[in-house]
């Protein structure tokens, strides 16, 4: 076999390896380093470098270098004339000794000559300069033949595509980061808007100030206690914040009536779930059940609620959460016509109405959350902040909660421990 054929077979082997290297998802820096090895080894080239082009800085930044010494510049600047020439030249090797008319080769002439660099290949992909390859003298001492330049070109195409892909990936990552940032901003704006709405709703009812916000927080607690993920729990909080949005259309004198309202007024007030649904439905919420929570938060498991008298499983789960949170807040806060009820009474009420008005598993979750906080298992102080320390630490409340939970759900690990009575009942 002729030496030319040998060289060709050897170079094709290197080209195949280069294709394999670039299509593998290796570390980019390592891929470029290996690519430089392959191009050097294919033609017996003593030294060289591969650089990536930054079109913002107009610089070739060296990614891999072999045999050019530590003082070879890591960044090489191009002027617009260089760029124009390299683009019009396309992907074909330039003999450095014959290209000194270009500013780039004039600026770096001494550096290239000292290192015996012979060929420069601009890497042009889809009409953009993405990088360049610098190649030094061959070990044979001969100049590059036409077919060797073709091989350099072919390998350069692969390396150029690898760099272009990397640039594309970096751009995608940058845009994804930007999208994430925008999404976070939108989310934050959404939550601020929701809270503003909740405040606006609460403003209308001077006797239940902060009710919507508290229902949002109790809904969040219940959702987290039943094991919902962060997004769903956030959705439950939003549903709680907005559950009474329909009250915005109810006359203030009805909402603020310091007496028991009459049937007509009651009918007017009872429209608020439906109105809330109408208000919330056209809005594209990140959490789909928010309008349903507003519509059905006065439904009861036994079918005696309103507006539609839904029963049990007909009631959307989010509405069951908000319903419990709503009633819990109503029972634990002072109203103009009714003082807040003692904590132990509230526990009794929830137990008595579990299965009638409230979903039992949600009641046990809410009470379980209280117990965990009182026993120190949960140190978040979520309940204390909403109900006040004195209310939460009412005498005998820990025992009451344990007893109730044991009655309602005796098989859960927490209540089993409570039943055995081995838990230290220190109130924190």
């Amino acid at each position, binding site marked *: 076999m002729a030496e030319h054929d040998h*060289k060709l077979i050897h170079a094709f082997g290197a080209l195949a390896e280069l294709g394999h290297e670039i299509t593998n998802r290796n570390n980019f820096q390592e891929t470029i380093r*290996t690519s430089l*090895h392959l191009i050097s*080894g294919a*033609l017996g080239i*003593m*030294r060289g470098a591969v650089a990536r082009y930054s079109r913002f800085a107009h610089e070739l930044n060296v990614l891999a270098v*072999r045999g050019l010494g530590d003082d070879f510049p890591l960044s090489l600047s191009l002027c617009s004339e260089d760029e124009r020439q390299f683009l019009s030249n396309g992907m074909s090797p330039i003999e450095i000794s014959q290209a000194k008319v270009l500013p780039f080769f004039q600026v770096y002439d001494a550096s290239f000559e000292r290192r015996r660099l012979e060929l420069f290949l601009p890497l042009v992909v889809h009409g953009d300069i993405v990088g360049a390859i610098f190649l030094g003298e061959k*070990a044979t001492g*001969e100049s590059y033949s036409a077919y060797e330049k073709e091989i350099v070109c072919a390998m350069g195409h692969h390396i150029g595509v690898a760099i272009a892909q990397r640039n594309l990936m970096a751009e995608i990552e940058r845009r994804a980061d930007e999208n994430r940032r925008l999404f976070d901003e939108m989310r934050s704006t959404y939550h601020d808007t929701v809270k503003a709405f909740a405040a606006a709703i609460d403003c209308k009812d001077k006797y239940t100030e902060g009710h919507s916000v508290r229902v949002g927080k109790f809904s969040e607690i219940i959702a987290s206690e039943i094991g919902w993920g962060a997004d769903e729990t956030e959705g439950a909080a939003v549903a709680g914040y907005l559950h009474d949005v329909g009250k915005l259309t109810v006359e203030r004198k009805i909402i603020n009536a310091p007496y028991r309202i009459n049937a007509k007024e009651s009918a007017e007030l009872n429209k608020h779930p439906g109105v809330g649904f109408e208000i919330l439905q056209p809005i594209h919420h990140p959490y789909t059940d928010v309008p349903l929570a507003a519509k059905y938060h006065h439904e009861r498991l036994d079918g005696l609620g309103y507006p539609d008298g839904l029963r049990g499983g007909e009631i959307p789960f989010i509405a069951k959460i908000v319903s419990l949170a709503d009633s819990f807040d109503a029972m634990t806060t002072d109203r103009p016509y009714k003082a807040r009820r003692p904590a132990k009474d509230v526990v009794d009420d929830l137990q008595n109405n579990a299965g009638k008005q409230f979903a039992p598993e949600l009641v046990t979750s809410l009470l379980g959350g209280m117990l965990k906080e009182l026993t120190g298992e949960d140190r978040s102080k979520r309940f204390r902040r909403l109900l006040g320390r004195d209310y939460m630490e009412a005498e005998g409340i820990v025992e009451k909660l344990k007893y109730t939970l044991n009655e309602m759900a005796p098989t859960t690990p927490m209540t089993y421990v409570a039943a055995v009575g081995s838990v230290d009942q220190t109130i924190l």
Partner: protein
Amino acid sequence: MIIENESRGSVEPKPESCTIAAGDYLNKLSGEEIEYECRRRIEAGYRELVVSFSKTEIVNSIGISILLGVIDTAANNGARVVFSDVNQDTTDLFEMLGLTKHVTLI
């Protein structure tokens, strides 16, 4: 890759020659081991590096590039590189790519 032997000059306090054996396939992984070892020996002052190819059947393009790097580093540090026990195919490859212009084959 094995350091087979080291000999030290009797007059000079610096070490003189060492032999580094390449494995059966000189590729990126084994090549970089040889490169590292050669650089270490050159920095330690060895004046001659003998790379033994007695077990080597294939040298790929990356192997060639790495050997060129070793040759270049040795030349820049005034050291000599010797390739020993190279099989005929690999000798042809070294000749074709010009490595034999820079090393002694034994």
